[in-house]
């Protein structure tokens, strides 16, 4: 029972944080709301018995990446976002495309039945040991292929930031 209340509370916080992130005028406020969202999502992970994932999520996202965001905002001196002019046609276009997306989703959902009950996971499914088993045994090939992805991204980053040799 208490987990259900907790779920609704966390769901409210994460959706509120997400909406507030894009509605805030001040970029620093946006970042702070985003951190709130990340913490709420970490709480969801805990409810799903994914303890390790929750810890990593807080350290990597709420810690490292958000600090990077704040640094960029401070270095570029963006702490007051000038109210950019939104033209009427821009507003109409975005409203129409968002409405179309909703239309497609409603059209697909029409006549569908609701999803069944999700199977219960065991309590220690999210421990480091079990996660490691899944990552390095069941999903070893995707894990290795991700290295090709990162190598490509690394070569690309070096390529884009390297000085021209003959200019």
């Amino acid at each position, binding site marked *: 029972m208490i987990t259900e209340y907790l779920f609704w509370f966390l769901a409210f916080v994460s959706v509120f944080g997400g909406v507030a992130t894009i509605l805030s005028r001040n970029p620093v406020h946006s970042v702070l709301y985003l951190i709130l969202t990340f913490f709420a999502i970490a709480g969801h992970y805990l409810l799903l018995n994914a303890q390790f994932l929750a810890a990593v999520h807080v350290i990597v996202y709420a810690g490292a990446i958000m600090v990077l965001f704040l640094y960029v905002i401070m270095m570029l001196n963006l702490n007051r976002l000038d109210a950019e002019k939104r033209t009427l046609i821009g507003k109409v276009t975005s409203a129409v495309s968002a409405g179309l997306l909703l239309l497609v989703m409603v059209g*697909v*959902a029409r006549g569908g039945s609701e999803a069944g009950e999700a199977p219960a996971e065991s309590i220690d499914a999210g421990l480091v040991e079990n996660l490691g088993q899944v990552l390095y045994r069941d999903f*070893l090939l995707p894990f290795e292929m*991700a290295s090709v992805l990162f190598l490509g*991204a690394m*070569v690309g980053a070096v390529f884009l930031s390297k000085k021209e040799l003959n200019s």
Partner: protein
Amino acid sequence: MKELLISSLLGISVLLFDLLRLRRAILPLVAAGLIALVAVVVVDWGTASNPFGNNMMLMDGYALASIGILALLTLFWFAITSDSYPAQSRRTDLYALVLFSMTGAVVLVSYTNLVMMFLGIEILSIPLYVLVSSDRQNPLSNEAGFKYFFLGAVASAILLFGIALVYGATGTFDFTELGAAVSASTSNLMLKAGIAMMLAGFAFKVSAAPFHFWTPDVYQGSPTTVTAYMSSVVKAGAFLALFRLCTGPFSAVMDGFTDMLAFLAALTLVVSNLMAAVQTNVKRMLAFSSISHAGFLLAGVMTGGETGPGILLYYSLTYGIASITSFAVLHVVSSYQNGAMEYDAFRGLVRRNPFLAGAMTIALLSMAGIPPMAGFMAKYFIISGIISTDMVWLAVLMVLTSVVGMYYYLRVIIAMFTPVENAGRIMLRGLQHYTYILLSLLMIILFFASGFFEVLNF
């Protein structure tokens, strides 16, 4: 497994060769590696294949044929653009990025797990974002890179959301289990929403309308050689991946999405052809023409069935060759005209270099679908496949939009045969003449060899 190893090790060895100051050996290495990839496909052809990596990938007949075609297209791309980049370290990085991106395409045609599929899409896309913005002095190229990166990230997010919903509905990523779970619960709300979002993500990656808005700007802004790669290998890889998904685990519910795909295909055909007809820039026109071919390929995905894979492979190969040739010619022509890419830049090309004019004529006629070229058979297969699935209106629309296509392809051809006064000759270096001749011949030979693809059975 061998195919995957060869393609990913090839990219890494290019980087190593650069480190060891063996820059002259890089192009031969790439050629040898890609030929080895094709050879492995030929040797493995017909042998029973087992899934590997804990059911992550399966090199079945479809995957092998697709890898063969992707390797061939990449080989043609390297052969035809080899002289476009000055011999320096920048070139090595570009080659490595192209090869990494091709590795993503190899993953995309042989996956049997949704995790692998998403990784394949990302391995294909991320080097491309860099390749698109590789002309760093050109603001258009930077803009194209930014647009492609941000929109591509949004599309990946939608695709990933779809995968998450499908996982939530079925509890598995694996194709075999997924197929069973999907056919057991065809009306599951979460499953249908997930598949719709995955299709939307793919529609972006293959640039089908109304998800095509990035394509003209990105194709125009990126260096022409990169555009040639995007419109051939990348497009083929994305479509072959979509086909593997639609005819594999989701085949049980695909009937419910036929209307959606048919609408996407119809809209793609109409919008792209009308937009292409009013362009004044040949590169932008070819970009819209590439979108219109996405409409045909989307219809090919819907055809499915026994002959479906063969038709799709045939279309990917013929369109890939034609688009590599046309973008390569455009690159050479515009580099002799201070980067001008209007129709006028092509005036008198037949006098300036008959090889280029001939190859461009054959490539454009193939894209337009004129009989002695392979493009005619490709369009014919897809239209007859669509008629056999009782969607005559779509087939009629395809024929009508092809007529519009004829108009803007012929404009280039007419410009090439318009005589001009004192135009300088265009010189081609090294093996380039032979590459153009080979590709032109292939576009005609494939017309007569089309029966082989039609009976290709997996």
